[in-house]
């Protein structure tokens, strides 16, 4: 059937079309509106969260310092298979480029990077750079290696040449391996780092150990408090709740510093104990694991109590009575009827405390000793003190992965749909 333009049907269809398109336009407007409403949030998240974290994590796999400082050398070394010494022509390119780099002072970060591979490389490269113009420029190919060795005998060791070739990037697992106390040997196999430079696996285990212990202590202390809060009459439970919330609202730094005042050798606890004659020498309460546990548990306890409390608040008290009237012992009723209903709150509480513990930095730094520092401390140390950003990024990556792993384990066994954060 064909319809002419002036038939009633076509008029109807045309009308339908405009209705459709008006509808579509309205839909589109609504979508644009919705997008416009979430745009600020999206932009904020991208700018403040995703982009900085992604660009930091990128540093953990990037290896650009050498290729940026010595691009021609990197190009020339590509032809070399890494056995013995590089071809003399490549050494000449390297020598030429050293002269230029020394002139423009662009060698700085490359020397630092190479020193990570082989200790002593930094001073050797700087010395070579200073003498490059006089001793290396224009030396013929058959004498170039000897000219290098004349400046520093270590150039006679192929390992140093190999280190340059291995550091050309652009991507590398160098820092990721380092963060796990591993490195690649001359054959490219993964081996342990020397024990004087190995610490990060220990730190990782220590971080897990402290987090698990803090979570357990918080659970044991928090459960009865949450139960008390949920079962007391409102007037009294509100007062108790304030006691839980007040420290929760106080700055973390203030609470940590307060613990230093309490726990130190001449602090309140030791002074009182000695004054009362309970002990004669000051007890070691701070700058050790004990101090870390005390302060961290105190700070993280509300994160355990509040989710459990909010779930317990919603449990019908008649369930327990019903169980008891059906013949269950009080404890059995608690374990079989009450506790399972608390699980979403317990899950949320333990997950929160555990994940927050994993990333703890300031509290262990202030009340712990050197043997109590967790992975965040080493991230900061590498970020701001030794300026090894690649390693800091690799450690951050491990921390992030660890958190995600526990996140998914939790999801697998408890499920996020059951999560109640209060």
């Amino acid at each position: 059937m064909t319809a002419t333009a002036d038939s009633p049907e076509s008029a109807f269809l045309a009308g339908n079309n405009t209705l459709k398109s008006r509808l579509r336009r309205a839909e589109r407007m609504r979508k644009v509106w919705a997008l416009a409403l979430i745009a600020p949030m999206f932009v904020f998240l991208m700018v403040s969260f995703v982009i900085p974290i992604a660009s930091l994590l990128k540093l953990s796999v990037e290896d650009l310092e050498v290729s940026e400082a010595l691009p021609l050398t990197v190009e020339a070394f590509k032809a070399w298979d890494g056995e013995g010494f590089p071809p003399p022509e490549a050494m000449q390119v390297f020598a030429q480029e050293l002269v230029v780099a020394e002139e423009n002072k662009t060698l700085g970060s490359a020397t630092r990077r190479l020193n990570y591979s082989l200790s002593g490389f930094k001073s050797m490269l700087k010395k070579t750079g200073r003498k490059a113009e006089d001793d290396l420029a224009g030396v013929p190919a058959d004498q170039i290696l000897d000219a290098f060795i004349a400046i520093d005998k270590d150039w006679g060791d192929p390992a140093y040449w190999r280190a340059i070739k291995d550091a050309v990037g652009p991507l590398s697992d160098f820092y990721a391996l380092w963060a796990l106390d591993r490195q690649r040997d001359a054959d490219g196999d993964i081996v342990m780092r020397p024990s004087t430079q190995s610490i990060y696996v220990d730190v990782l285990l220590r971080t897990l150990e402290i987090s698990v212990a803090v979570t357990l202590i918080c659970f044991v202390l928090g459960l009865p408090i949450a139960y008390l809060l949920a079962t007391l009459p409102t007037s009294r439970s509100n007062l108790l709740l304030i006691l839980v919330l007040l420290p929760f609202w106080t700055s973390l730094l203030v609470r940590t510093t307060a613990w230093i005042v309490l726990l130190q050798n001449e602090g309140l606890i030791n002074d009182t104990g000695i004054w009362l004659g309970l002990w004669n020498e000051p007890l070691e309460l701070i700058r050790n694991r004990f101090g870390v546990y005390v302060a961290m548990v105190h700070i993280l306890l509300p994160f355990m109590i509040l989710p459990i409390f909010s779930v317990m608040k919603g449990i019908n008290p008649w369930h327990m009575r019903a169980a008891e009237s059906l013949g269950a012992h009080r404890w059995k009723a608690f374990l079989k009827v009450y506790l399972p209903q608390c699980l979403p709150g317990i899950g949320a509480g333990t997950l929160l405390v555990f994940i927050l513990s994993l990333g703890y930095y300031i509290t262990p730094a202030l009340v712990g000793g050197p043997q109590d520092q967790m992975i965040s401390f080493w991230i900061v140390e590498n970020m701001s003190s030794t300026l090894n950003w690649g390693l800091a990024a690799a450690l951050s990556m491990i921390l992030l992965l660890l958190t995600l792993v526990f996140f998914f384990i939790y999801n697998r066994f408890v499920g996020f749909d059951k999560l109640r954060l209060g």
Partner: protein
Amino acid sequence: MNRYWKGSLAALGGVVVASFAGTAPVSAEDSVTVASWGGAYSMSQREAYYKPALKDIGMTVLEDEWGGAVSEIRVQVETGDYKWEVLDADVGTSLAACDEGLLEELDWDMLGGKDRFFPGSAFDCAVGTISYGTIYAYNGDTYPDPATAPQTVADFFDFEKFPGKRAIYTGVSHTIEMALMAAKGMTAVEAQAYYQENTDEAFAEATAFLEPHKDQLVYWETGAMAPQLLADGEVVMTTAWNGRIYNANVQEGKNFVIVWDGQKVDYDVWAIPAGHPNAEAGMKFIEYASRPEVMARQSQYIAYGPTTEEAAALIAPDVLKDLPTASANLTNAYWADAEWIADHIEELEERWAVWKAS
């Protein structure tokens, strides 16, 4: 009034002076901004250099504070938006910045040559302004009798004779040298030389020597923490920067005693950001501040020493005795070798951190 406001007011004052100078307009060359560390240290510089500079060489000096990081210099050099003509930096930072081309090379003819200055305080891009000592100190109330009180570096590690905890700097600096002096009976200079020549061995020996006492060691991070630990009775002895101990005695009435044996002498330096259009004025200021009679003034206001022999000779004996560069305090001392440190600091810090944590 806190020091931020003081600094700002001083800066404002400078601007006002500059804009009202009237008939003889003060040109840019006659004004420099110096970035320093604030607090008592900036105060001593204000009295010794900044105020007199206007009278002596007609230069207006404005003050600012900075955090001492290479990145702060880099941002100004790369953007060309300079805030400071002159920086007061630590030696390591100045060497790192110089290596990256972020500092002007100084005009050594103007300064009278590098030989005028104490060893290790004159570099291509930087020149020493003060010397400070890393020493150890104890509370005079704990060991009241000077005859039986700690006197040598060995005493610092003698946990039988002087039981109690010791505080040391959290970084690797000076502790290895001290341990070598105590463990191997070396002088300060010998310990430094041995450390630099046999680094791996020396490091292993020093940490093995410290190992049995590891649980007796407390670490301080900021300069103020060292006297605080001593005052709180957390430790019986601590290493420290001499000025901090001196200030605790003078300003807080403490009875701390400095043991100069085995001290490390270190410097702060003047430097100029690379490519500064007004670098010449910065150089003029540094030349002025390096004149013996000018440099000697600073020690009246803070217990840090000069960096030239001529300036040291002009300092009154009762002031001089508290300075790291007094000859009595230098009987067993070594001078920090900043270039060697700059080349090795990263791996040593890493090794040290691993030892502390394991």
